[in-house]
């Protein structure tokens, strides 16, 4: 397969079944560096499954996924997890911060796992916490901050490794609209400044309005709503 010109991550003809449930049925996707694409569609239509396949977390039954000229679907598990750590960032609906660590330790964690020294990792972590306006929370533990603050910490953590692709599944799902929009603003600003691509699963139109275009998933099939200009 030839990925669309200039695309960083693309997928064709993805199929994934869970027992009798066909979660993906020929889905396609493509994203450029610096692009924010919203993935929308009804509940149960296959949005999260598509995101998990694109991120190499779930292996599709068939279909191809290309990342930066390499076939993700043909890599070994070890290669794929290495790629996830070095090139991908993740934000989910609930921050999933480690409760025992302070906020700055949480943000620094992905760098520590990649072998960066503690001092250097925490310095980089603080820079991102400043950008996300949560640097004053550095010493607190996740249990001591609000939901919106925790989600910003999680966004800082997802960006600290300067990922080429940021995967966000309902990143504002647990937030009120003001906090949700602030998180989106900071997240898209940060991603644009590093030319990262953002795959943004959301059912909220006001969140999707921060994207450049939307892809609609219905019954495991995707539809690019970009209109030919």
């Amino acid at each position, binding site marked *: 397969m030839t990925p669309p010109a200039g695309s960083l991550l693309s997928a064709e003809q993805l199929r994934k079944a869970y027992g009798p449930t066909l979660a993906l049925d020929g889905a396609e996707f493509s994203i450029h560096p610096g692009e924010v694409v919203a993935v929308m569609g009804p509940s149960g239509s296959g949005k999260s499954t598509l995101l998990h396949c694109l991120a190499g977390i779930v292996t599709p039954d068939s279909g191809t996924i290309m990342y930066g000229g390499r076939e993700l679907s043909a890599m070994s598990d070890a290669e794929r997890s290495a790629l996830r750590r070095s090139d991908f960032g993740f934000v989910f609906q609930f921050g999933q911060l480690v409760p025992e660590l302070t906020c700055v330790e949480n943000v620094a964690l992905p760098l520590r796992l990649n072998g960066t020294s503690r001092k250097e990792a925490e310095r980089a972590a603080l820079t991102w916490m400043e950008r996300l306006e949560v640097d004053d929370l550095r010493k607190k533990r996740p249990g001591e901050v609000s939901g919106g603050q925790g989600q910003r910490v999680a966004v800082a953590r997802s960006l600290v490794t300067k990922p080429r692709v940021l995967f966000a599944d309902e990143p504002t799902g647990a937030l009120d609209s003001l906090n949700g929009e602030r998180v989106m603003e900071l997240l898209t600003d940060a991603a644009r400044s590093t030319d990262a691509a953002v795959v943004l699963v959301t059912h909220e139109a*006001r969140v999707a309005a921060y994207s450049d275009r939307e892809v609609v998933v219905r019954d495991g099939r995707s539809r690019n709503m970009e209109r030919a200009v």
Partner: protein
Amino acid sequence: MSIGHTLLGLLESGPRHGYDLKRAFDEQFGHDRPLHYGQVYSTMSRLLKNGLVVVDGIEAGDGPERKRYAITDAGITDVQQWLATPEKPEPYLQSTLYTKVVLALLTRRDAADVLDTQRSEHLRSMRVLTERKRRGDLADQLICDHALFHLEADLRWLELTAARLDKLREAVTR
């Protein structure tokens, strides 16, 4: 709402007399505003002039309601184009959007498609407003937010309708 397109769509299932068209319209779409016969005739004569319908027979007796109309190929294309073209996002779209969805179901077209197309058009407006909000001062932000919430309300209604298409199809094609 476009009465012309709605009457055309009702003709897709087969030729109908003027009075029958009015009855079908009132039943399906005219809950609070039944059509006047005058509207039916003026609309039908315009459709006739534009070649979107033809007169397929005339019943004995007098009065224009006795004419039987049939849709032409050009008429079917016209309905198709109307359904495929999203509405400009404006306040109080519900009746037009509702009509489009019901008509798509009645004519066995893909109603989910109508919704996707409209969502895309709404999102286009919402992106412009969101960008203006990001660059603007507080006043800009509040003004844009008001518009954004209204567009979002339309969309939430559309999503809900989409989730109930099967029920709605049953109800309107019964």
